[in-house]
Structures are given as structure tokens and as C-alpha cells.
């Protein structure tokens, strides 16, 4: 593939104090890629995701979104984006869906969804409302548009959060354990929405513990261990026994966990 990757991450490093959480991670995501990032807790996968849109600042490495590199500077306070303007512009292209939803609790669902388009992208309100209603229809919560987040179930909140991120028309969406905070019976409705997005060729990077999603929906699986990419490949190869011994052990462990539960 010679086309510019939607997202290119080069040699990301990050330490918290003396503890090195990310030890040089590189990755390219092309148009329509759905990449599942797996790993035991503490393997650095969430930190990796948060470094991509600079919710955490990596100590070293480059992030390139749609061919544009986020310029960085280093001052006595540490490393940060050189231009907040550039960072904010690039962030509009990088959606993020959080484990804990993070809907704005003082706004209704509809207000949550039009907030970015109206107040960040400065698009006409009527147009944004129409789009937001279509998005809510798509994720199946159109009847909840005037509710406040506190009055929704976890699964509904997460679907609203996905709609909020889609409203910005991002080039890539980062999912940070989107189903980990949900009751088991609500996981399915969120995974269905994500599967639909994958089918529409949305570029997605998904940190998850859902083996079924990794195996059946993504086209690439990355296994992180101790702050590095331990092995990666297609789900067929990875789940077909071609992953590293650590990965084999990891999926065996996950399967017994699921059986126990």
C-alpha cells in the first residue's frame, strides 16, 4: 500500500517517573483498518492510545495524522505540542471514545453531539442538529436525544459517545476499552455499533479485552507486552497459533477467565 496512512505513529516512548510504560511503539493505520490492541493490564495499551491524541505527551516519537505531523517542542516544563492551534485542528480528525463515556453531564444527548460541530467546527446549527439526529438514529438511541446522560444506561451512553465522536467526521477513531465499564448484557449493543462502523470502512484503533471483536471484526491484531509490540498480524494468523508464546498464553488466560465468568 502506497497511500498515505490515516495515522502513523513512530517510536513512541513514555515514562512515568522511573517506570518506562512505552518503549518505542510504531504503527501505521491505513484507510479502513480496524486494529485491535490487546494486552494484559499494565502493558501500556491505554497509555499508548492516549499518547496518540496527546492526552498524554510521549517523551519521544512522532504522530502523523493524515500526512500531517504534530509538531512538538521541549521546554523546561517538558515536551508538549508546539502549536495548540495545530493540535486542536488535528484532534478534530482523531475521534476518541472513552471507557467511562465522558459525556458532558450538563448537556442533553443531542447537545452533547452538536457541541463539537457547532462550537469547535463552527458549522451551522440546524445542519448539525439534522446530522446529529441521523447519527442517533444510526446508533439506535434517537428516542433519547433530549435525555441527560445520567438518565441513560451504560450501553446507551457509550453509543451516544460514539455518535458524539462521529459528529466531528474524524478520519480515525480511537477506542479506549469502550466496553470495559459496561454490564455484560450491554456489551453487545456497543460492539454492534462498532461492527457497523468497521463495515463502513471507518479507520479504528481499538484497545479492548473483547476477543470476539478482535478475532471477527478487526483486520489486524496487535499484542502489547511490557510497553512494546510483542507480536502482530491478521486475526487469522494470531488466533490460528502464529502469535508469540506470550500471546498464546494470554488468549488461553482470557478464555479461562471468560469460562469462569
Amino acid at each position, binding site marked *: 500500500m502506497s497511500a498515505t496512512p490515516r495515522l502513523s505513529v513512530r517510536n513512541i516512548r513514555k515514562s512515568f517517573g522511573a517506570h518506562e510504560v512505552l518503549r518505542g511503539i510504531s504503527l501505521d493505520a491505513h484507510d479502513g483498518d480496524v486494529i485491535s490492541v490487546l494486552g494484559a493490564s499494565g502493558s501500556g495499551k491505554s497509555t499508548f492510545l492516549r499518547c496518540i491524541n496527546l492526552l498524554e505527551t510521549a517523551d519521544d516519537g512522532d504522530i502523523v495524522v493524515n500526512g500531517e505531523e504534530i509538531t512538538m517542542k521541549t521546554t523546561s516544563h517538558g515536551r508538549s505540542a508546539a502549536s495548540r492551534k495545530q493540535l486542536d485542528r488535528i484532534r478534530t480528525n482523531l475521534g476518541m471514545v472513552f471507557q467511562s463515556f465522558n459525556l458532558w453531564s450538563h448537556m442533553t444527548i443531542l447537545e452533547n453531539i452538536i457541541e463539537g460541530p457547532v462550537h469547535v467546527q463552527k458549522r451551522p446549527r440546524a445542519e448539525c442538529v439534522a446530522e446529529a439526529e441521523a447519527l442517533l438514529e444510526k446508533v439506535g438511541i434517537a428516542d433519547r436525544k433530549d435525555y441527560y446522560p*445520567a438518565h441513560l444506561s451504560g450501553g446507551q451512553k457509550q453509543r451516544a459517545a460514539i455518535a*458524539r465522536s462521529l459528529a*466531528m467526521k474524524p478520519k480515525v477513531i480511537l477506542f479506549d476499552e469502550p466496553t470495559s465499564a459496561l454490564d455484560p448484557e450491554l456489551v453487545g449493543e456497543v460492539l454492534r455499533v462498532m461492527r457497523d462502523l468497521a463495515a463502513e470502512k471507518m479507520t479504528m484503533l481499538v484497545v479492548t479485552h473483547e476477543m470476539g471483536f478482535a478475532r471477527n471484526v478487526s483486520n489486524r491484531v496487535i499484542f502489547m507486552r511490557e510497553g512494546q509490540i510483542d507480536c502482530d498480524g491478521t486475526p487469522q494468523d494470531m488466533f490460528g497459533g502464529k502469535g508469540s508464546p506470550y500471546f498464546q498464553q494470554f488468549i488461553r488466560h482470557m478464555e479461562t477467565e471468560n469460562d469462569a465468568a
Partner: protein
Amino acid sequence: MEIFTLLGFGEKGWGVLILTGMALTLCVTLASLAIGAVIGAIIAAAKLSNRWWARALGTAYTTIFRGVPELLIIYLIYFGGSSAVTAIGQAMGIQGFLGMPSFLAGALAVGLISAAYQAEVYRGAYRAIPKGEIEAASSIGMPPMRCLRRIILPQILRFAIPGLNNVWQLSLKDSALISVTGLAELMRTTQVAAGSTRQYFMFYIVGGLLYLVLTSFSERVFNSAERRSNKSMPRGMGQV
């Protein structure tokens, strides 16, 4: 009935003066709440800052203004302010004592105290906002100032209402101390009426009742504001 004559609005009655005093109490407290809101917000921001000297300044402010008697602050502002005004007057060639306007001095003194309490209210309210909601704003590329206006401030106000109710009631009662500067607010007027008619019981009880009218009325205003702001809260939390 002598009582009705004394409390009435006739020539011998204190009614008009007392109601004027009550209005003045309300005005001076509103002014001090406004002054306290501005200074309190700045102090709260200082205490939440990641610069150590700003935090130290904020902490010093709240420690001093919450730890020193209100009356002392009022004396300090009124007499301190007056001697400053007098000194300026003398420099401009005006002889004699120049008093600082007592309304201004009172509103400023109570406002400075109120600011210390309001700062704590705002700081607590800020802390109550889930950090993830601010991250969500950053993640869609919302600039920091817009995030402050759209996401942080509306929620600070919502979380601050119960605490502000408290501060308001404290300030309303602190405003009685301004009577020492001679401002004819409710306390001062009651005092004068009681002294000159020697009907101490009656006038102080009436004064007390009028303070209760002010506090219970404002309690209602705050409660309805709280109910309105709570419509986005989970069921059973703050809903009536």
C-alpha cells in the same frame, strides 16, 4: 395600640426607616456577594493552579480571611480606608477627617470575607467535575478557553449553588456588623429605634424576624435554582 404606632408608617412610626434598613442590608449583601464572587473566583483559580506561588497566595488569603474575626476586617477596611482617604485629601489640600463611604467599606469588608468562603466553594465545585469530561473536550479539539466557558463554568455553577446558599446567609448576617460604621442598614436602624424608644424587646424581635424573612426568602430562591440545575442529575439526587 402603641406598638402599631411605633412600627407603623406614621409620623411617630419607625416602619419606613426599618424597611429602608432592610433594603440596604439586602443591597450591601448583594454587593458583597458580587465582590466576593470575582475575588473568590480568582482565589479559587490560584489555589487550583500548578504554580506553587499562586497556590501559596490563595491559601494565605483563605487562611487569613477565614481565621480573623469579621469585625476586625470591617474596622480595618473602614478606619484603615478612611485614614488613607484622609491622607490623600491632605495631599490635595483638604483639611480634616475624611470618612470612607460606609456602604463601600462595608460591602468591601464583607465581600473580602465572602471571597474566602466562595473560593472554597468554587474549588470544591471544580473538583467535582469529572476529569474525563474535560479530556473529552480536549479530544475533539476544543480550545482551553472555550472548554472553560462551555464545559467547566456551567458545571461549577451547578455544583456551587448549595455552597453559595451557605455563603450568602453568612454574608447576610455578617452585614449586621457593618452597623458599627454607622451605615443605616437593618441592624443599625433596629438599634437606633430600640434605643430611642426604649422598646428593646420589641424592636430587636422585629429586627430578628426581618432577618429571618430575608434568609428564608433567599433560601427559597436558592432552592429553586438548585432544582432547576439538578434536572440533569441522576434520579433521586437533588430531585424533589
